């Protein structure tokens, strides 16, 4: 019996939805029995991606953000997509500490945090059409390398 699941969530690019989005993804990921730290990792990565949609994807208006989550075995995939401004130079955008919005006190660490807390990170973007961030994380005791197996 394979362990697969998926969900799609759509919401407005309002900052009050950042918490809501984190909570939804964490609740969906809960079926993989993650540790508290793994859940914190996922919530932080989702928070960074959603915030980027709000601040960079839709700087002057309210748009739609779509989150899709997929579970396959012990792997969680999270896609965060906006249909906004898009990224001209993805490599530059992903450079640590690089930000186009220092006026908003953006630290430029969003992508670095996503990379640190998830196992894989892909970014697709077309200027004028939007941006899709796809992140994957393997969750659970089997995923932890170098730790002794728990008995029972």
């Amino acid at each position, binding site marked *: 019996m394979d362990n697969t699941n998926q969900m799609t969530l759509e919401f407005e690019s309002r*900052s*009050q939805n*950042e*918490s809501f989005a*984190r909570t939804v993804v964490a609740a969906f990921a809960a079926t993989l029995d993650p540790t508290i730290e793994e859940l*914190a990792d996922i*919530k*932080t990565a989702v*928070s*960074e991606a959603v*915030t980027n949609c*709000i*601040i960079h994807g839709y700087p002057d208006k309210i748009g739609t953000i779509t989150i899709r989550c997929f579970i396959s075995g012990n792997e969680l995939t999270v896609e965060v997509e906006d249909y906004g401004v898009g990224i001209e130079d993805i490599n530059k955008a992903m450079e640590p500490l690089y930000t186009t919005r220092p006026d*908003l*006190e*953006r*630290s430029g*660490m*969003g992508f*670095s*945090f996503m990379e*640190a807390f998830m196992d894989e990170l892909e970014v697709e973007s077309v200027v004028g059409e939007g941006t899709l961030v796809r992140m994957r994380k393997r969750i659970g005791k089997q995923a932890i390398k170098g730790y002794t197996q728990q008995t029972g």
Partner: protein
Amino acid sequence: MQSGKRYIKPDVSSGKEGTTYEICHRCLIIRVNDELDHHNAVRIREKADKLIDRNHVKHIIFDFSGTDFMDSAGIGVIMGRYKKLVFIGGKIAVANVGSAIDRIMRLSGLYKIIEKYDTVEAALQNLK
């Protein structure tokens, strides 16, 4: 010159206690009491900057006893206040930092420029 303690009415618009602000001598104590994401960082920035400008604040203590989540927006608001105060010799401190917040702080390198204390009182002692 303001001295002594002042209590600023808490922002209770959300129904729960929310972030509270207190000024003690020239220290602004921000008890975050919430997740520190972009949404809350913006509100804290606006409120804190008004208080800093009107009350000759020199130091800021962030009390994270009610906070179990922070992302890079939290780093941004702390950094922003640091930049604002560093030129007048001000310092930023964090207190009651739980493991989740500590992780983010360490990853961001913020401990190079801000000090961590176990309690707000300890921070106040060191910042006077």
